[in-house]
């Protein structure tokens, strides 16, 4: 059936928490009242991105972008825009309020500077409809691979594309696939999608799965074909209720259409996917701990080597890729490696999806070419820092990354450039912090996170995260000495190299990174016994009183 107009109601987790399901129902209720139900279709989409001003509603074909829509606004959109063809101006994006309202979404700065490859369907299709995915070219890549490419050619294409793991480590995906493809084939191999997105401030995998679950499934099937695996698992956080629901539906639909299961598209290739729920431990995002958990054990990292491509899940060769990595795969196969290389940088082609949060005007989900600078992200897409405050730092890569101070605003955002400055691109968190915050207070929240999330298996992490946090607490209370700082540095040096897995090895990174760029602010606490931002309880008496009566955090 053909429609005159489509109303896309964002139903990602952020908008749905702000009543987007009710908005959608209201549209469905009111359209027949105006006799429009045969002419206008309401589509529930995944995250469209500009979460700060959700719920968002986009009306096609024109692309009119309504933000901050309430249930009570729906009648006006229906009666004015859909019935009479008059845009409801008061609901257009207008930030700051003095600015000129923007009518269509491609003209909103937030969208104008983005390049959407992974998010190509997010916000545009009903993620619960496999037909809509297929209509936008979905499963073309799988069809192409199964009918016109050998598994080795698929591996080669991914290698040639230069795609690197989007979970944070940036390992070349094609190389990983090649290892798995060449590994012992005497038994089963597995493809695992790592959807245990645990970095604080990161929720891009969640929104990708909510918005376009089939892209990830197609990527998994392609990985399976490339390496000779017939079973895939999505290990996903149990809290991601909506992602799980949509993924389950997507798997069922794909099976029904013969796009998963036995003899896919009549090619003789079998591949199926099951979902496994995580229970929320941060360390289970580490691939070997994830395997332990997936197998039913305690989530603790394994010793490497052997690497997953030799002995991963159930001791068998396993490709484990992040959600975003897998969502890139179908486009690369469909459009080719050389196309992919036109995006991003030489060493890191492609795009990166970030969740832009914190002290920023336009918080939300964004996708940008690799190599873009933080300045461009903050000021062109993000709309700058609100409330007239100054940019102080950005935390990239979640708690495991370093920080980016104002000095580094023009460093290209890619794995190697950020690593060279002691930071990390990470999994896709981009937490913007303004100058109202105290660096010690910020760092203390990082140290607490690691104390809370250490699995407890190895000594330096289990004991070291406690010591780091206690030192941070002392600094914050104005009780620390220079010896504490020396001990913190020595401990950090040991922790970079001694722990068993990356969790412990990166635990000191945010502290050392903040110390490096904001040493004077640390010293103000330690030597001057003052908190320049006025956040920390540096006053000794107050601190002692607080320590005496307040429950300790751990």
């Amino acid at each position, binding site marked *: 059936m053909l429609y005159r107009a489509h109303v896309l109601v964002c139903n990602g987790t952020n908008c749905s928490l702000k009543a987007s399901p009710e908005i959608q129902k209201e549209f469905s209720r009111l359209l027949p009242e105006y006799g429009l139900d045969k002419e206008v279709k309401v589509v529930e989409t995944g995250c469209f991105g500009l979460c700060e001003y959700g719920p968002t509603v986009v009306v096609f074909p024109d692309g009119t972008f309504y933000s901050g829509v309430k249930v009570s606004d729906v009648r006006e959109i229906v009666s004015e825009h859909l019935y009479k063809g008059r845009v409801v101006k008061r609901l257009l994006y207008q930030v700051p309020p003095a600015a000129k309202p923007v009518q269509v979404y491609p003209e909103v700065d937030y969208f104008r500077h983005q390049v959407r490859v992974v998010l190509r369907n997010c916000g545009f299709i009903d993620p619960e409809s496999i037909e809509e995915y297929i209509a936008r070219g979905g499963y073309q890549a799988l069809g192409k691979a199964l009918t016109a490419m050998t598994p080795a050619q698929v591996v080669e294409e991914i290698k040639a594309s230069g795609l690197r793991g989007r979970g944070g480590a940036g390992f070349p995906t094609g190389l990983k696939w090649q290892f798995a493809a060449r590994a012992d084939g005497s038994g089963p191999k597995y493809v695992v999608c790592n959807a245990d997105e645990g970095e604080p401030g990161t929720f891009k995998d969640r929104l990708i799965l909510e918005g376009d679950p089939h892209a990830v499934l197609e990527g998994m099937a392609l990985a399976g074909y490339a390496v000779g695996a017939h079973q895939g698992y999505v290990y996903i956080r149990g809290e991601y209720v909506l992602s799980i629901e949509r993924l389950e539906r997507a798997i069922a639909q794909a099976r029904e259409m013969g796009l998963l299961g036995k003899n896919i598209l009549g090619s003789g290739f079998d591949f199926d996917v099951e979902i496994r729920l995580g229970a929320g*431990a941060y360390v289970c995002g580490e691939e070997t701990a994830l395997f332990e958990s997936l197998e039913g054990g*305690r989530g*603790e990292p394994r*010793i490497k*080597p052997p690497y997953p491509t030799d002995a991963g899940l159930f001791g068998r060769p396993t490709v484990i890729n992040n959600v975003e990595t897998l969502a890139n795969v179908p486009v690369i196969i469909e459009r080719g490696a050389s196309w992919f290389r036109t995006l991003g940088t030489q060493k890191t082609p492609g795009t990166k999806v970030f969740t832009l949060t914190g002290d920023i005007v336009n918080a939300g989900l964004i996708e940008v070419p690799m190599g873009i600078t933080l300045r461009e992200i903050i000021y062109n897409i993000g709309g700058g820092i609100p409330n007239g405050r100054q940019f102080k730092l950005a935390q990239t890569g979640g708690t495991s990354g370093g920080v980016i101070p104002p000095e580094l605003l023009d460093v290209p955002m890619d794995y190697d450039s950020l690593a060279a400055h002691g930071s990390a691109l990470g999994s896709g968190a981009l937490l913007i912090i303004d100058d109202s915050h105290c660096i010690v207070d910020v760092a203390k929240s990082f140290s607490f996170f690691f*104390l*809370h*999330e*250490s*699995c*407890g*298996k*190895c*000594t*330096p992490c*289990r*004991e*070291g*995260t*406690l*010591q780091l946090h*206690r030192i941070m607490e002392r600094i914050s209370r104005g009780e620390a000495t220079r010896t504490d700082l020396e*001990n913190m540095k*020595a*401990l950090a*040096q*040991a922790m*970079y*190299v*001694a*722990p*068993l897995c990356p969790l412990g*090895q990166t635990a000191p990174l945010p502290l050392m990174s903040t110390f490096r760029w904001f040493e004077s602010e640390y010293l103000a606490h330690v030597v001057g016994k003052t908190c320049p931002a006025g956040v920390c309880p540096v006053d000794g008496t107050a601190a002692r009183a607080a320590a005496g009566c307040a429950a300790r955090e*751990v």
Partner: protein
Amino acid sequence: MAKVTLTIDGRKVEAERGMTVLEAARLAGINIPTLCYLENLNAIGACRVCVVEVKGAKALQASCVLPVAEGMEVWTNSRAVRASRRTTVELLLSDHPTECTTCIRNGTCELQALAESLGIRRVRFEGEKHGGVPDESSPSIVRDNAKCVLCRRCVAVCEKVQSVKAIGPQERGFETAIAPPFELPLADSVCVNCGQCTLVCPTGALHEHDDSELVWAALADPGKHVVVQTAPATRVTVGEMFGMPPGSVVTGKMVAALRRLGFDRVFDTDFTADLTIIEEGYELVHRLQEGGVLPMITSCSPGWIKFIETFFPDMLPNLSTCKSPQQMFGALAKTYYARKVGIDPADIFVVSIMPCTAKKFEARRPEMTDSGYPDIDAVLTTRELGRMLKEAGVVFDALPEEPYDDPLGVSTGAGAIFGATGGVMEAALRTAYEVVTGKTLPALDFQSVRGMEGIKEATVNLDGTELRVVVAHTLGNARKVLEAVRVDPGRYHFIEIMACPGGCIGGGGQPIPTTDEIRKKRIEAIYRVDRDMPLRKSHDNPVIKVLYQEFLGEPNSHKAHELLHTHYQPRYQYAQL
């Protein structure tokens, strides 16, 4: 095996492919300190004490789990390595009670030794310590988590060797604690009390429940007649508590030492081991001839008993109904012996010296009171005895060799070999052969059931009747045997199970360290004891003959059943919450 050449600390070292860097270094005479590592049992790279620097690797690597590779360049002692190691051990110490002087492992603690060898003189880090109150719920084993370094050797031995899995890591991060599921008390868990965890624990976090104070009190009580029995395996191990080499036979010195402590009579569990052979042997013959439940399985090892009660309750009818030699001794001490010496059994205090922590649990089983009194009043492990002797100032080396007291100190070599895996089987076969065939056994040594192999099968010809037997030690092997029997119940006639590796000589109450090398030496010593005994068959024990004449009547008589046999109870495998 293919060889690889690597460089360790600047020296070319040859190693076999598949070896770890730790193994290669040790072969080359380079010592890398370890803590969580335990040969053949635990290599998990958790403590990070054994870290080394490897050329090309960003982080330090745990040498216990790092495979050697051709051309690898390793530094075990660089500045970075030493700094990391010191920091790691300081961190462990920052979270460890500083009560070495009063710790049960003072002097045998591996953390103490590590800190000493690394020359740690101060701890830069301070803060709260994990742990809490020790779990003393079990009569056998105390868990003092405050002293736990989370090396997980206990978890490994419980799971991999014993297949019990009573304990594991609970909680996470700094809160991580080795405990039964749901952090229940050990007494409410599937723990079988074997105490193997206490042998592998590097610190005082897991140790035997110390009952020495009970014994000191009884010895000091003039109203008590205190008798002691010594288990077969203790005579080849207690010397190690005084620095004697493993495999030293110290039977006479141990008897003398016990007299110095003030025991009124020093008796021998070997005597009731002989008695067990008679009772169990007749029970087996009876089952064979009368179509009883087969295979019959030995019942001397209390860790094993709780294991089968918990994990194979359907197979309890296969167990011999015989009490263990320890309990038989107690039952006789408070009846036959009490009557003989004219002492009110209420005034007799029976102490056992055992290689075993599970014996403490066994002694407290409510059914072990057939005489109207508890069979056993206190159980001491070899380690507790060693410590009591030190406290009493006994110079063990200088003691003369003294004989056991009559009458419950008379035994044969068959009783002695109860202390090693295969020993109960061999002792039983020596007697069964002669009882069934009426002929003299041509060769006493049944080599096929001896030694450290985990499961040993044999077929014995009893004058035309084939007796199929199997011997298993460790509960992991016991599990395998029972699973095989479930599939094929006719596979064996008679099964010997000992819970601990190597049998009682490797028991959970034995001196630390107890390694496979040491176990082998203790086993050799046990067979030397047997070889040097004038009598080597239980049915030749003259006191046993008198015992039946004067008191029990005949084997498996009503009285024997009343005092020397018992029954078992199914137990829950999962916590009853």
